[in-house]
């Protein structure tokens, strides 16, 4: 069984090598627009996105992000709005906050893939340094980057899997014996 959505999910990859070619502002906006429709716990929308295409800002963000191998043409920083989360009575480490970071990121990755862009996430960065570079207000915490650009023809070998992964190996049918 397949369809365009399933095919897009199957063929998406983390892109860790990007060309220097810029992406169109309209493409970046399309990715952000898609993220607006990402699932959000309780429809609370506790996240804010910081989008940048400025070359100097991109360079500085890469400098403080040890996990960023690519040189992106644009970055969307997914932030948790901690002040807003607190207003809902949520604890700072409530799992919903981080799950929603993931749903927003995956939605952006798929949107980028559908547009023919390369995209990859980065979480290995200094939140303090990123906050300083972007002058992020105190109520927001940067949690994940979605790096966007055009995929380079040659990609670094990905992280090796620890054994074969299939949907069957990931799934337990019904109750554990």
């Amino acid at each position, binding site marked *: 069984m397949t369809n365009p959505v399933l095919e897009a999910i199957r063929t998406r990859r983390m892109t860790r090598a990007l060309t220097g070619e810029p992406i169109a502002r309209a493409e970046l906006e399309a990715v952000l627009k898609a993220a607006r429709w990402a699932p959000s716990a309780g429809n609370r929308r506790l996240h804010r996105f910081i989008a940048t295409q400025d070359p100097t800002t991109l360079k500085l963000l890469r400098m403080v992000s*040890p*996990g960023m191998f690519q040189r992106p043409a644009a970055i969307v920083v997914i932030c948790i709005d901690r002040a807003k989360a607190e207003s809902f009575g949520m604890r700072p480490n409530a799992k919903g906050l981080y799950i929603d970071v993931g749903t927003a990121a995956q939605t952006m990755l798929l949107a980028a893939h559908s547009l023919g862009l390369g995209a990859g996430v980065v979480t290995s960065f200094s939140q303090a*340094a990123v906050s300083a570079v972007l002058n992020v207000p105190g109520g927001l915490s940067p949690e994940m980057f979605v790096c966007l650009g055009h995929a380079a023809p040659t990609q670094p*070998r990905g*992280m090796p899997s*620890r054994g074969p992964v299939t949907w069957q190996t990931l799934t337990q049918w019904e109750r554990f014996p």
Partner: protein
Amino acid sequence: MAAKMVLNEDEALELVAFLVTAARTQVDEAAEYGSLRLLTAASRLAELIAERVSPETRTFLTGPLKQIPDLAVRTADPAGYVKSLDAVCHAVGEHLATHFGLDQKKS
């Protein structure tokens, strides 16, 4: 050999920033990322200086130092990973001995 600058201020700052922020991110990340980050730092430094060093050092930086894939970590093949690191370290030792003339000294 006369001292010469192989990094400008912007490049040096990039490396300082990488090392300092990696020290912080490593607190929360898998232990095996420690080696990964150090190798990434070495690789970035190598890329920055490659055009401004001696041909012999350039050969080392673009050859043996690049043998370990960018995203390699220990878990998938612990013995193979250590073997690869040992090979690079051996190449480091060889190059140092040559670069500093140790191999020319009479014992």
